[in-house]
């Protein structure tokens, strides 16, 4: 009986995929062309890459909430994981791995900085840079070079929440003169750079924390 239910569900999924593909081929021409509107407003946006402009200016409110989602995932992780961390295997004293990780770490940081800077002109930006930083931290943890994180102390908490708070401060600060996230034209570029830099740092910590808080000290 259960078997029949599973086959049925799989058939429904297949049928749905087919219907969806048919629907996709029958789409008419779109009525609204946002690409043109973005291009028209680029000079006022403060950055030169359209995706960054959409992410941090035109639809910056979505970005604000998505950072909240990420910080929330970290909070939930901290709430679930016991204070001593979860058991994890160590790469105990594998010298080659550790050396490679230690050589790679500064290069990873450099790559992250480049991605952050490049985001103004080509694909890149705070999220990509933060993810690369986090990957570096995970690599160091897996190689056994850095210990896992236990309860975050006040400085680590400040780092984790700092990027979001800077973003909120800028967004709310702009409320005084105009609307939420309404950058004044001359200051837009500088504010966006400030937000992106602090986000990179915090995102690196948050994403790294999503892994590192699992693996506290083995004591």
């Amino acid at each position: 009986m259960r078997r029949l239910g599973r086959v049925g569900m799989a058939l429904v999924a297949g049928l749905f995929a087919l219907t969806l593909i048919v629907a996709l081929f029958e789409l008419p021409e779109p009525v609204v062309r946002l690409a043109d509107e973005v291009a028209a407003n680029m000079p006022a946006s403060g950055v030169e890459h359209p995706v960054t402009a959409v992410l941090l200016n035109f639809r910056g409110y979505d970005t604000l909430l998505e950072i909240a989602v990420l910080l929330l995932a970290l909070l939930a992780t901290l709430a679930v994981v016991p204070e001593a961390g979860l058991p994890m295997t160590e790469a105990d004293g594998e010298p080659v791995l550790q050396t490679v990780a230690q050589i790679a770490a500064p290069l990873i940081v450099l790559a992250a900085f480049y991605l952050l800077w490049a985001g103004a002109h080509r694909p890149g930006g705070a999220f990509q840079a933060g993810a690369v930083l986090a990957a570096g931290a995970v690599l160091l943890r897996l190689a056994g070079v850095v210990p896992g994180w236990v309860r975050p102390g006040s400085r680590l908490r400040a780092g984790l929440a700092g990027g979001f708070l800077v973003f909120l401060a800028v967004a709310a600060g702009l409320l005084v003169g105009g609307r939420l996230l309404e950058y004044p034209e001359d200051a837009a570029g500088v504010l966006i750079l400030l937000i992106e830099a602090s986000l990179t740092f915090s995102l690196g910590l948050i994403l790294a924390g999503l892994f590192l808080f699992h693996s506290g000290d083995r004591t």
Partner: protein
Amino acid sequence: MTSGMVFAATGAVLFAMGVAGVVLLDHLMRRILAFNLMGSGAFLVLVGTAQRDGSVDPVPQAMVLTGIVVAVAATALAITLARRLYTLSGRTELSGTDDD
């Protein structure tokens, strides 16, 4: 048949596979992977259909970036819960009442 439509059609298939996976599979890690498949499918549909006539549209690309971050957050939470459940009880599946 532009490249956008190929992506969109692939996204449709991936989405269906992902949903079927979350609903039908038993092992928690496989279900989490299926969820990621589902999310990637939806993103492909979003970007593919918006750019089906070959034009470049930054708005869906930014939306997908946001979606990826949200999916990462959800995946991380799911993995944390699954790991903790495994540590506490040795279970790698949700048993009992009808799993949907």
